[in-house]
């Protein structure tokens, strides 16, 4: 266990934000989860007792008749905002006094940094470079992430759970978002920051970075495993595999979705449904491709003269 190495990584000034992000995220997940549980308990009660559903004010916080439903922004909100601004300023001051922003040697195109890492918030995409060609990891994925986020309000047809924390009423939506945000985004950033060392190789936390380490990895392409040699056959084979994944995967997801989310399924238009399916399948494809690579050293699935997937 090389504590020194671990400390060097964790205390690199530009990595400190990620070290800070992890407990913050844990705290806010807890905060959201706690409130969701309370709301879900209330929902359960109201569902079993229609009489209560008629009279209850339907929030988890106490309320008595006679209490005002609204409060003045001044002072009740503004004092919190001013306090928050002061606290943020103090935190920022202390952070800035105790930790210096990094400044390396002057830029030198002839002296490659190893590892050369993007800023931490893009490390998830850089990690994807291991499994995908740059045009996918660097261009297609960011575009899909942006579009995917933008379509969320238009494909989530579930009218429940607007304006309060809940798990019970939105299992599918919240589960999917957590998968995308925590696993596919934050976890990849953490791998990129703490695990990737020189040559973008995998070093466990606490393992010494060996700048001369070479890994003899023989990567194969999927068509090779099937003994396909001609270019045309490879292209067709890949198209069939990828198309097959979307068709078969789509079918499985469809079977699950209409069973477990029948109401949403009914509410969704064909367009909404196919957009959702496309994004879901694409999201699920990432860990699958990673698995192919890590477990069977498979580099490409689909090889064409113009692009490889």
């Amino acid at each position: 266990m090389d504590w020194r190495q671990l400390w060097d990584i964790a205390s690199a000034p530009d990595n400190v934000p990620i070290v800070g992000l992890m407990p913050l995220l844990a705290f806010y997940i807890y905060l959201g989860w706690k409130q969701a549980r309370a709301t879900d308990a209330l929902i359960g009660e109201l569902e079993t007792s229609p009489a209560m559903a008629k009279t209850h004010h339907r929030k988890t916080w106490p309320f008595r008749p006679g209490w005002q439903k609204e409060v003045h922004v001044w002072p009740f909100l503004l004092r919190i905002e001013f306090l928050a601004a002061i606290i943020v300023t103090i935190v920022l001051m202390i952070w800035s006094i105790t930790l210096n922003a990094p400044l390396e040697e002057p830029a030198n195109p002839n002296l490659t940094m190893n590892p050369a890492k993007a800023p931490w918030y893009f490390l998830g995409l850089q990690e994807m470079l291991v499994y995908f060609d740059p045009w996918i990891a660097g261009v297609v994925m960011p575009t899909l992430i942006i579009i995917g986020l933008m379509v969320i309000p238009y494909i989530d047809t579930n009218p429940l759970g607007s304006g309060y924390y809940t798990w019970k009423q939105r299992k599918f939506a919240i589960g999917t978002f957590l998968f995308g945000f925590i696993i596919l985004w934050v976890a990849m950033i953490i791998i990129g920051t703490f695990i990737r060392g020189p040559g973008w190789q995998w070093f466990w936390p606490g393992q010494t970075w060996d700048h001369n380490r070479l890994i003899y990895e023989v990567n194969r392409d999927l068509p090779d495993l099937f003994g396909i040699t001609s270019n045309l056959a490879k292209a067709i084979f890949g198209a069939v595999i990828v198309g097959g994944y979307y068709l078969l995967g789509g079918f499985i997801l469809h079977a699950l979705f209409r069973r477990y989310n029948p109401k949403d399924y009914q509410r969704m238009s064909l367009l909404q449904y196919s957009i959702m399916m496309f994004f879901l399948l694409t999201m699920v494809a990432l860990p699958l491709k990673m698995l192919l690579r890590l477990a069977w050293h498979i580099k490409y699935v689909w090889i064409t003269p113009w692009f490889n997937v």
Partner: protein
Amino acid sequence: MAEENQNGKNGNRVSLLQRVKAGMKEDVESLKTDLPAKAKEQIDGLKDPTKTQVYTSIFRHKHDDTPRNRALGVLSNVFLHLHPAKINRDAVRYSYTWGMGGITFYLFIVLTFTGVLLMFYYHPSKIQAFRDVLYLEHDVPFGKLLRNMHRWAAHLMVIAVWLHMFRVFLTGSYKKPREFNWNVGVILLVLTLLLSFTGYLLPDDQLGFWAVTVGTNMARATPLLGHEGPFGPLLHMTPYNDVRFGLLGGSIVDANALLRSYIWHCIGIPIVASIFMIVHFWRVRKDGGISGPAPVMLASEVKEKR
């Protein structure tokens, strides 16, 4: 009398001199009595400055603690009027919004302020940039603190935006009627990341240089528009005319890239982001204020469209 005087008949004619004397006496008298009285009145007035014209021209309402004045305090202030006068009693609970949107905005202000100060010391040229940062760190009073605050506020802002988006998602606040504002938010998220990224190159050190090199190398592979991307060569893309060239102003990260970064970072993106923020805040109000905490809705109460 005037007539008689004019006619010059049997009048006790008052000499001009006497008239002037009497007039002046009156003037002096008035100086003695009126002036102190006025002065006293006005000094008394100053004891209550809220009655002065200057004051009433600035503050347009009274400040005694009445509900009306509390509301007016918010509504008649340009900086506060984005807020409504009153809000849902539970919406002020920190646990609901986590305050992350507000904190993001506050950090943006901090960044603008520290950023402008940094601009006083920084030249976006290959010769000067790195030295300017050294100069800031070692010679400019509080220069190091300034640079540190700008750097860490930027990182914090990225984290705050993510957490803000996370809570908006968890509370389902993107649902009708807030779909559009969620989209404005997504654009703000992208702009925030771009702001951070364009700033990374400015110190012109190894860290920024290689981060931006790695980042923009991906642009080479843009389908159709990059010289190493799928179908790029078919469209006659070369390192000297593809998107990466456009981003960097050259085929390598060099002086032009530094200048472009600088302009995007200090002028272009901040302006665009400010505009989107204005729209964002406006829409929060127009969409009915903060989404909750709303009364829970039960599955049995959903009215299905037929």
